[in-house]
């Protein structure tokens, strides 16, 4: 009988740790400390770039290209919802560059004094993503308001969620989503798995998903555009490389990668 005692205690401990670790891991995922031991005047050493989820494919490519033209540099990314990243940065997370999917989120970082000036480097628009083999046909924005259509959007504090709400409001649509996901990639995955009939994502996400989803274009006069600002973080221990990365994103080489991903130039 007594042998059950420690077992129960271990299980209790397990119960508590697993509650904590699931949410903890999600909030701080992939933000290793930037190794900023290098000289501050040269473009070398490691930097950590906090970037919006929707930039995952294009920034991964830009990072590799940047490392190739600047030997000795290492770019590590922390992709997530812009709002989550902004919170992490204002809580002094070791970021060197922040690329946001909305000016509003960037403003919270500059207001907190973590960045001084930002530059818009890309513009994105929204698109409806539907499963490759649809259960319910969705061919227009108006279809999203129909009963029985399972629509998934980002939650309202995330830029893609704010854009989705704006999209519905300006087109006088009453859409009741079945879920408000934490970032745009979570919305996309629910569509890819066929659990949702439609998701409001960026044009670039539909392009990146390839054949896994079918995009339904939103006419230009009904659509919402989002500006993406980028800024070096003032507390960066490798300010020179951080600035060089920002310059590279704004350069023709960086813009070319972004254009190929479906972004339009500012």
């Amino acid at each position, binding site marked *: *009988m007594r042998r*059950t005692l420690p077992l*129960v205690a271990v299980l209790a401990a397990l119960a*508590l740790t697993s509650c904590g670790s699931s949410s903890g891991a*999600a909030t701080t995922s992939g933000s290793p400390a930037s190794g900023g031991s290098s000289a501050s005047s040269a473009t070398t050493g490691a930097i950590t770039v906090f970037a919006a989820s929707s930039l995952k494919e294009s920034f991964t490519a830009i990072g590799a290209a940047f490392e190739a033209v600047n030997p000795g540099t290492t770019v590590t990314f922390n992709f997530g919802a812009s709002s989550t990243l902004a919170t992490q940065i204002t809580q002094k997370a070791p970021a060197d560059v922040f690329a946001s999917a909305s000016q509003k989120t960037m403003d919270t970082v500059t207001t907190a004094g973590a960045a001084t000036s930002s530059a818009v480097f890309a513009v994105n628009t929204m698109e409806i993503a539907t499963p490759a083999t649809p259960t319910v046909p969705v061919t227009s924005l108006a279809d999203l308001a129909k009963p029985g259509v399972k629509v998934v959007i980002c939650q309202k504090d995330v830029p893609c969620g704010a854009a989705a709400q704006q999209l519905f409001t300006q087109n006088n649509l009453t859409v009741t989503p*079945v879920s408000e996901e934490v970032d745009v990639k979570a919305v996309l995955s629910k569509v890819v798995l066929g659990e949702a009939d439609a998701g409001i994502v960026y044009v670039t996400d539909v392009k990146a998903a390839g054949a896994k989803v079918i995009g339904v274009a939103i006419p230009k006069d009904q659509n919402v555009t989002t500006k993406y600002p980028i800024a070096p973080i003032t507390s960066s221990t490798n300010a020179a490389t951080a600035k060089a990365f920002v310059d590279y994103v704004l350069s023709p080489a960086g813009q070319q990668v972004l254009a190929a991903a479906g972004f339009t130039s500012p």
Partner: protein
Amino acid sequence: MTRRDRSSAAPPWPVALPAALALLFLGLPLLALILKAPWGRLWSILTSATSLQALRLSLETASAATVLAFLVGVPLAWVLARADFPGRRLARALVTVPLVLPPVVGGIALLLAFGRRGIVGQYLDSCCGITLPFTTAGVVVAEAFVAMPFLVITVEGALRGLDTRFEDAAATLGASRLGVFRRVTLPLILPSLAAGGVLTFARALGEFGATITFAGNLPGVTQTLPLAVYVGLEGDPSEAVALSLVLLAVSVIVLVALRDKWLRTGAAS
């Protein structure tokens, strides 16, 4: 009680120092949560419509998941402890997998099994129009998947440790098998049932990864307290801290309950 005498000596510093560090490491984050809590706004945050909705949904789904765990988990514990069948060791291993599996992985697995396109879910959808993702029932399923093993393992341990002579005696005196179970076995394992139930409820209440992956996040339908905490962090971080305090309080209450009541009586019986 001889154990207490042995441990009363002061520990040598090579043990005491890392031990103190470990205690600080575990305690400081919890202390920070309490120190940084928006105490002035606490009541208004906790009684806001969103918080109450999330709290109510959490209590309802965790209770439902616990009931579900009792309905099928206790029989499973009995089978694992008493019945002899091929693959019993495999079955027991299977029960412990959700304990160590990252909950997010559990959520993906649930989607692939019970999602609208899942290996079982597609038939649930076509035959009876049942879809679990994005529903409150989906939350209960996710929580039960992650939490039920706590009940099964606790109860199975109790059944194995049970002195079978009581049951044998009852059977000899003419009690039916069901009668023995109801009148003898059940009362004997009651403390373990309670302890397992509390653990299961607590784990279900804290469930995050499997829930958000399988059931999604919608206030009033699938947004439980841990999800509200995570989402709150993006909008109003102090709201997230306030809601975290509620979950911390529940954890503490559970541990106190287990230590001072059921665990002691459980050991005594």
